[in-house]
């Protein structure tokens, strides 16, 4: 999927039993339980979700849970429960259809949708090691989309563990 392409709709089950999909300005983050890059960026991404209540945030785990049991739906539920809840739903892409439709490559891989199209795709910021980066690339993209503008940096290289395909 390229910048400007129509974003595929979907509805996936969340750890709390509800179902969610994109609607309006939406951030879709492909992520997982076991990848150190996803874990390193996790708190920053949750904070962005808290800071932009007008935006829909969806965390999607697309990994093959047979080979990676740490990414099973049960393990996802246990993680959210252990954390005392997340400010965004954690969705299970069991068929991996959504990850394929979006062309997700890594965990994490961030997609910002606005007006039904893809507006930003890539990493949350420039350095998973540096918490002060504060998911700056994602925030820049959101600020632009919410202002009715195009992000100045619409695409960056996603960094993380490869999606674990079946």
């Amino acid at each position, binding site marked *: 999927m390229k910048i400007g392409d129509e974003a595929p709709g979907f509805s996936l089950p969340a750890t709390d039993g509800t179902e969610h999909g994109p609607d309006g300005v939406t951030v879709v983050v492909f992520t997982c339980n*076991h*990848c*150190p*890059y996803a874990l*390193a960026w996790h708190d920053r991404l949750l904070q962005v979700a808290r800071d932009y209540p007008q935006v829909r945030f969806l965390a999607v785990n697309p990994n093959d849970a047979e*080979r990676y049991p740490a990414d099973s739906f049960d393990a996802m539920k246990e993680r959210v429960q252990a954390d005392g809840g997340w400010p965004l739903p954690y969705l299970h892409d069991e068929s991996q259809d959504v990850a394929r439709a979006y062309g997700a490559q890594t965990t994490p891989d961030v997609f910002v949708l606005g007006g039904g199209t893809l507006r930003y795709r890539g990493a949350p910021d420039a350095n*998973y*090691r540096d*918490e002060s980066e504060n998911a700056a690339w994602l925030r820049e993209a959101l600020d632009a989309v919410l202002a009715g503008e195009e992000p100045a940096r619409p695409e960056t290289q996603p960094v993380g563990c*490869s999606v674990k395909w079946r």
Partner: protein
Amino acid sequence: MRVELLWWEGCPSTPEALGDLRRVLREEGVDVDIEMVEVQSDEDARRARFPGSPTIRIDGEDIVDPEETEPFSLTCRVYRLRDGRTSPTPDLEDIREAVNR
């Protein structure tokens, strides 16, 4: 001293781990070749008792004890830095401590 870096291509942290390892060896005055060992399959991983990429071994011993729950498989390894943060690569000081053991 035998220094091995076991790695899997699905995890992008190998160059960073190699750079950190080279830096520590240089700083500690240890002149040794690093053996790069590619792990290509789950079967390889089980045979090599590979808990994830990257794994650094010195004289056959992992510089950081793997979690007991970590399966031997093709995955990116999760390290805990000394300040508590999660990282795809080991803490520099853990590498240094292992080199000086």
